């Protein structure tokens, strides 16, 4: 029976001791321990959050970079396209211009040639005329060297003229 018969003194001492223990541990042990645990948990949580944030920022940066690269690619493509267009147009222009020039040159040459040819022909004609006159003069001089021949010839001419 003594097992379930609590001692009065023990109950009093136990109450006293437990209250003191509760006070001492509460003030000098649990309070700093709980505070330290909480602080550490908070710092861990903050660190995790910061890491997540950093990761997100990196993702954003990466996405930005990709976008930038894509834009650059597009710009490059357009620049290349424009350059090709410009090249084509320049080439075409040059081709047209050169064709025209050639035509002009040909035309001018042809005109020059014609005028030169005409001048040459006129010169030849005048030269031939003067030569023929000289030759005719020389022949006439030869023919009309003696008097007989002059007479015969004059008669012949007179004959032909009279007949007419």
């Amino acid at each position, binding site marked *: 029976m003594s097992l379930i018969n609590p001692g009065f*003194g*023990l109950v009093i001492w*136990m*109450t006293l001791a*437990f209250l003191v223990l509760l006070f001492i*541990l509460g003030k000098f042990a*649990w309070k700093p321990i*709980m505070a330290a645990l909480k602080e550490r948990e908070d710092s861990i949580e903050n660190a995790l959050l910061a890491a997540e944030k950093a990761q997100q920022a990196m993702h954003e940066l990466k996405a930005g970079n990709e976008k930038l690269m894509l834009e650059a690619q597009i710009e490059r493509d357009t620049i290349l396209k424009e350059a090709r267009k410009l090249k084509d147009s320049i080439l075409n222009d040059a081709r047209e211009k050169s064709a025209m020039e050639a035509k002009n040159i040909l035309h001018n040459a042809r005109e020059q040639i014609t005028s030169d040819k005409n001048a040459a022909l006129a010169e030849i004609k005048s030269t031939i005329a003067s030569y023929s006159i000289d030759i005719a003069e020389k022949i006439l001089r030869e023919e009309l060297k003696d008097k007989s021949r002059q007479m015969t010839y004059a008669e012949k001419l007179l004959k032909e003229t009279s007949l007419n």
Partner: protein
Amino acid sequence: MGLIALILFSISYLGIAQHSLDSEVDGMEEWQEEIAQEEFKAGDMIIEHITDAYEWHIITLGHTHITVPLPVMLYDKGEFHFFMSSALHHNHGNHMGYFVSKEGFNSGKLVRKEASGEEVRPTLDFSFTKNVMAIFFSMFLLGWIFISVANSYKKRKGKAPKGLQSLLEPIILFVRDDIARSSIGEKRYERYTPFLLTIFFFILINNLLGIIPFFPGGANITGNIGVTGVLAAFTFIITTYSANKNYWVHIVNAPGVPWWLKIPVPLMPIVEIMGVFTKPFVLMVRLFANMSAGHIIILGFVSLIFIFGEISQGLGYGVSIVSVGFSIFMDVLEILVAFIQAYVFTLLSALYFGMATEEAHH
């Protein structure tokens, strides 16, 4: 500081014990004969080991008891009496009419004989008994352990735990998160955590010290109904003190219960009001019974050795092998029980606090 004081205190008492042994030679002879004639009674031995005592028996060498005498403080018939337990001659003597009762409801307690021959306990018995001393010892131990842990938290701020701190931190976190927070709720658990941590570690350390069979362990504190009663009373007082309106409404007029259970015979309110008291009562009995039962079984196995030893010495040695084996098994089981009982007491206290502070959810 406190721990050193306690050690000095106990050493000086040990000295007194030795001294008192020398001066009591005449008184000793009587009970030496008594012991010699006594045959081994397992029941008495077991009860002696698991109940409180006025002195702390350490060992008996031959016929010499080595004990730590403790102060006996009585208030009786308008007078204070103060003497050392050594004056009681190891529970066989009588001091100023007071002696330790051998049988009946008051066995093991200090009583005096009335004229009618009836044994009566003094009005108030404040004696600093074995269990009181063990409580103070475990208290200093707890204070020393946890204040040093708290200091290492201060010293190693924001760093990983180390040493004793890393051993205890998971348990502290377990009590905080899995007992207090999950039972009481996120909002209010912080108010109750210090109490829950204190009872958890108080019960745990005393359960563990109770398994150690020699001084300064071996006192069956958590297997003493007075101690568990005080612990349960703390839970009861805190529960009742922190109870909100919702808690009382649930007791007087439990929602979701058919009306004919409340009117005209208030069956449910009676059951609920009884429940308010049975909860701490059950807390008290569960811890007391579990711890005492474990000690009784171990002591029973040890007793078997002496019971068989009385029949024949050889038989005693033979049985000792089996008994020691079973005792070791029980000791290991007791370590597990020490943790389980500390957990159960704390968890149930937390659940009661949770119930008392629960908000009405409509």
